[in-house]
């Protein structure tokens, strides 16, 4: 076996370094995040600062032009990135936490609790959660960043829960967990020493998957008019469509935020794929 281990000594880090998909998508995501963070400092305008120029095309003064109402599209976009990303991160965090906790409980406890959680998961899989989200959003008194994050997060955890559940269930009967019990570790100790560390790295991946899905969902909701603010990424495009941005020929109104949306969602998706390739040995290509 000795020479086999030499061949096997290929680490996750090394694989990541080689993965061009990972680096491209990761750079784009980071670029958009940085744009959201420092963008507001690059422009004198806020998303709702009135300017004298209405519908003016991109210029030095207004790099993304201004819209029908005279708002600076660059300012709207960079503030919009902040809003959409914040909602996305909150939603992904909530979905990951609920998913990991419920998945672990189901996998470890089994029996009735497992059956109950599994039923909820199956219901969420059968009914598209976005429908439920729209229904709830209609009746929500306040649709702030946190509220929207909560809404999306609390209805997207089922994917993560299902994956964690099967991982934990197979870990529970694995020989090393059995041996950990024989080594005198109580259930709680086994949980912290053997099960949680193995779940941790997967949870990170689950978070990125959730983020990718959450952004997609949120932009859709924003476009349908259920945004947290008037100037989130999806909301800008929605306004542009509603106020005839296309017929009026104000292409800059929807094109720039549109490119950001497409770039963000696509890169997050590719990022997930590349991370899965690295983390899941079965997808590894060497």
């Amino acid at each position: 076996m000795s020479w086999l281990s030499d061949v096997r000594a290929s680490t996750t880090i090394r694989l990541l370094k080689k993965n061009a998909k990972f680096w491209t998508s990761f750079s784009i995501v980071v670029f958009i995040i940085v744009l959201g963070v420092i963008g507001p400092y690059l422009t004198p305008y806020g998303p709702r600062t009135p300017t004298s120029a209405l519908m003016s095309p991109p210029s030095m003064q207004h790099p993304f032009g201004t819209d029908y109402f005279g708002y600076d599209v660059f300012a709207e976009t960079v503030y919009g990135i902040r809003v959409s990303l914040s909602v996305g991160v909150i939603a992904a965090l909530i979905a990951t936490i609920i998913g990991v906790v419920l998945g672990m409980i189901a996998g470890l406890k089994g029996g009735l609790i497992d059956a109950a959680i599994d039923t909820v998961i199956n219901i969420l899989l059968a009914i598209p959660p976005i429908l439920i989200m729209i229904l709830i959003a209609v009746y929500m008194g306040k649709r702030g960043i946190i509220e929207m994050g909560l809404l999306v997060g609390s209805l997207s955890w089922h994917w993560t829960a299902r994956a964690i559940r099967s991982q934990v269930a197979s870990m529970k009967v694995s020989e090393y967990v059995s041996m950990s019990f024989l080594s005198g570790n109580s259930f709680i100790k086994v949980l912290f020493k053997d099960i949680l560390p193995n779940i941790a790295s997967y949870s990170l991946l689950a978070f990125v998957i959730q983020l990718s899905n959450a952004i997609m969902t949120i932009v859709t909701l924003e476009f349908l008019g259920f945004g947290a603010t008037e100037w989130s990424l999806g909301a800008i495009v929605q306004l542009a469509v509603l106020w005839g941005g296309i017929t009026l020929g104000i292409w800059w109104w929807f094109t720039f935020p549109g490119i950001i949306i497409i770039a963000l969602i696509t890169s997050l998706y590719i990022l997930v794929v590349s991370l899965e390739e690295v983390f899941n040995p079965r997808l590894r290509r060497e």
Partner: protein
Amino acid sequence: METILELEDYKVYYKTLSGYVRAVDGVSFTIKKGEIVGLIGESGCGKSTLIMSLVIRKPPMIVMGGKARLKSIDLVNISEKERRRILLTKISIIPQYALDALPTIKKIKTFLKDIAKDKGVPEEEVLEKFIERARIIGLPSEVVNMYPIELSGGMRQRVVITLATIFSPDLLIADEPTSALDVTTQRHVLELLAELRDTGIIGSLIFVTHDIASVRQIADKIIVMYAGKVVEIGETEDIVTDPKHPYTRKLIEAVPKLGINYKKKRLSGLPGSPPSLLNPPPGCRFHPRCPLVMATCKTREPPLKPLNGTRLVACWLYDQSKGEQS
């Protein structure tokens, strides 16, 4: 007798980040028609690499040199197309985990159709042949309409053997064909392999295993490999009753005979494990574990030389010239 397989200074390495793993490092032997050859050694000695390289070659595996001929076919400089053509018809393999190699969602019939299409043979012909062979092998003809999951381990192994030998290859390679089976089915499978040779369905058989007791039952000849090299070749009876190389001797001693209880006699195994083939030890590769190690062994590599009759041994103990240089 006709020579089926001839290897000469055959080398297969793996390319890794830290250098070349010399899994098969200058191996020479021939296999004659009708022979059953047992290839033995611990895991990590290059046995599986050697035989896999004769059938499929995929990176990071690299054939570094030497000759390998299957009858008139040059296996070293063979095109990928030609390799596909001779697979199953001239050379065939039963892989180590053959039991799991069959996808569970395909009927046996579908496999046969795939094989027929791949080889450009009419489907009916392959199907007929399979049923005819299955009868010889002791499988009911209904298996063609069954899924692998419906078959027991022993039956699955017999299906794999039938599939692998359907075109009567000149050489069949069996990699640990019985290790996943129960003892009672093991005997059947081993006897079946011998029968395939006796009836001329296959030309010759290479049987790779670390279980010498199984090899003993059916092999005519034994080749012992250690750390990428052949250390001993001989007739089965001679090797088992009178092993010459200290490695072979240790391997055989580590297998208990029936009727030995620890209270009567303490046996001992072979301590340590084979060296890393990334940096194999200088001289004889077995010297760090050899109980009879001499000064020469640590610096000079012993050649594989004939010793009385049919035996070949690579060990300085049997070389008259050993004293000259050390």
